[in-house]
């Protein structure tokens, strides 16, 4: 999903529409009580929270900080340290271009530039139609296939800058599972 639904009323139908804010916060409280006592539980709690909300808004970070007995500055510090976490809503498709060492030397930077040009956005930004967000990855553990690009959970290997335009068209046409579809299953 790309943004918080305006309505706070719980979804009572059995359809596949997005969960309401109330439902998401109820899930968040479950996540907090599941992880709060576990050593190193903050990171998995943040990961789960991000998958529920699509990003980590300030209200969620505050709730997690309170639940974990940590300061907001510390939790925000952890969130901003890891490139996986985002404070802003992301697009339907999150494009992460790896710039780890192997990908970098095999042209990851050129691939990134091609995405910037095609999508007309900078790293960390989302297209105005909320379709694509662009991020830099720091190694996905697939160095043998460098340069690697991940779009949501789909890995693209040995990406050539010239292929980026075609890739984007394929993604829009359904080659990748969209974020909102994945989270609700």
């Amino acid at each position, binding site marked *: 999903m790309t943004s918080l639904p305006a309505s706070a009323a719980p979804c009572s139908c059995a359809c596949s529409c997005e969960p309401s804010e109330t439902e998401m916060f109820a899930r968040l409280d479950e996540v907090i009580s599941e992880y709060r006592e576990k050593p190193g539980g903050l990171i998995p709690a943040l990961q789960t929270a991000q998958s529920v909300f699509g990003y980590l808004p300030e209200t969620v970070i505050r709730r997690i900080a309170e639940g974990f007995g*940590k*300061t*907001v*500055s*510390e*939790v*925000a*510090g952890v969130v*901003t340290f890891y490139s996986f976490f985002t404070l802003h809503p992301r697009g339907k498709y999150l494009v992460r271009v790896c710039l780890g060492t192997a990908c970098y030397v095999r042209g990851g930077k050129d691939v990134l530039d091609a995405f910037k040009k095609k999508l007309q956005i900078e790293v960390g930004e989302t297209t105005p139609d909320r379709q694509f967000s662009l991020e830099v990855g720091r190694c996905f553990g697939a160095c043998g296939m460098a340069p690697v690009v991940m779009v949501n959970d789909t890995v693209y290997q040995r990406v050539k800058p010239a292929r980026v335009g075609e890739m984007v068209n394929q993604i829009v046409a359904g080659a990748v599972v969209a974020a909102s579809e994945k989270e609700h299953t």
Partner: protein
Amino acid sequence: MLNVTVNTQKIQVPEGSTILQAARQMGVSIPTLCNLEKREAIGACRVCLVEVEGARILQAACSTPVHEGMVVRTHSAQARAARRQVVEMLLSEHDGNCPTCDRSGDCELRALAEEMGVSQVPFEGMRAKPHIDDSTPALVRDNSKCIKCRRCVTVCSEVQGVGALFPQGRGFQTVIGPAFTRDLAEVACVQCGQCAAVCPVGAIVEKSCIPQVWKAIENPHLHVVVQTAPAIRAALGECFGYEPGTRVTGKMAAALRRLGFDGVFDTNFTADLTILEEGTELLTRLKTALVDKQPVALPMFTSCSPGWINFAEFYFPQFLPNISTCKSPQQMFGAVAKSYYAQKIGRKPEEIVVVSVMPCTAKKFEAQRPEMESHGVRDVDYVLTTRELAKMIKEAGIDFRALPDEPMDAPLGLSSGAADIFANTGGVMEAALRTAYEIVTGRELPVANLHVSAIAGLAGVKEAALTITGTKPEWNFLEGVELKVAVSHGLGNTRRLLEHIKAHGSPYHFIEVMTCPGGCIGGGGQPRFTDDAVRLKRIGAIYSEDESKKMRKSHENPDVQKLYTEFLGKPLGEKSHHLLHTKYAHKAK
């Protein structure tokens, strides 16, 4: 014990010691810009690299534990070259406008570069995008000077239990600051300034009032009076080369007179006044509880320390009714100067300017609280830290060490020894006990040399109990009561005490809280660098100042007595209520 060789010397050190501790034990100095006494090694600055025999690479002395038979070379050519390169790299990112920096006089990075003989910076590093946060009245943050050592983070979260600061972001883009790159005024920062006290460079400093104070002094239409907090006299000398713990009360008064203040007065005077108001308030609360059997907020907490007030307003609103309604001595002084003193000298309150010299940055915030005024006239106009006063003295070309000892002016300059000890952790409580016990029993507090030793010193939370016997008739409801008191300093200790009280209730009647470790002598506005050795020396100086006086109890102060007979009436009276008392409110985090 472990056998270690540092350079050519062999020594034995306790297991678990770090190389840095071992070296210090034998008087070898290894530079560090991030290490903090009694705190786990931060290991961020990398300035303490040393050579360890058998190790593949240089080791950070602060975070490497020694092992049996370890051979360390602290100042080998390789270690010196590496440390120098670390400093050069820090300098390459650092906004090094030293001549215009507040810290040019006591910057640890500048001193280290000089010590290492760094004459040029061979790297052209990227510089952080400058952002100046001057959102609070107390502090200014400049991230282009920050070297990301994280001392402020450690002190804010571990020592003060506040946690307003944390590294945000990653790598070169890291900013040490509040969440979501907010400014300090937008978060639950108590403005105690302990961050500014430990910062090795000029990245966090107090917001200066020096220009405004000069302007007021130089305005012939204004009558500018100055008050100095008890803690200044035990620390100001450090800015002029005196050993920590040197008392400079007389020279300080002489310097203030030469700076051009029209009245050289003492916050100590209103510390004595505070004891009368706050002591009466405590006895009144006890009477309400014990005689009238009415619900009343006990234990009562002291209210002198503005960082503590902020802390309670942010984090422990349930205890706000327990905090004494007394304004702090700083604010009482302003209120008295602009009413009683103004009348005495025939000046309008608005023609009087009150300047405070405080060991504290939160006092700058306190002076600006909207309620700290009477009839639209601010109680206190400008607050200088101890460090700022030293700068003014230097700027005025005053040879501080050559000054004679001079007294404070009347009528707001006379004080008891009980007022002096407001500077130390446990001091406000001891001062209150000296007076309250004597009011209730007619006899002197029955402890050696008037010191309640159980609540003195640097333990984090201290307590004492005192059984009251032989009461005067009007206080006989206190006969046989065991008065229980507690003292905490450092907000981390205070948080633990309050959490304990929340969970288990309080056996105490009265609790003293001081924001900073050691009390005001360790305040965020004091000369750098304050460690426990310095704290103890300043504490000792304050106790000897107290003991040097004949008058050691607040209620004996004749000028305070005169203030009541001529002007205020009685403690907690109508005028006191209006001028000397205040209220608190819950602040959202």
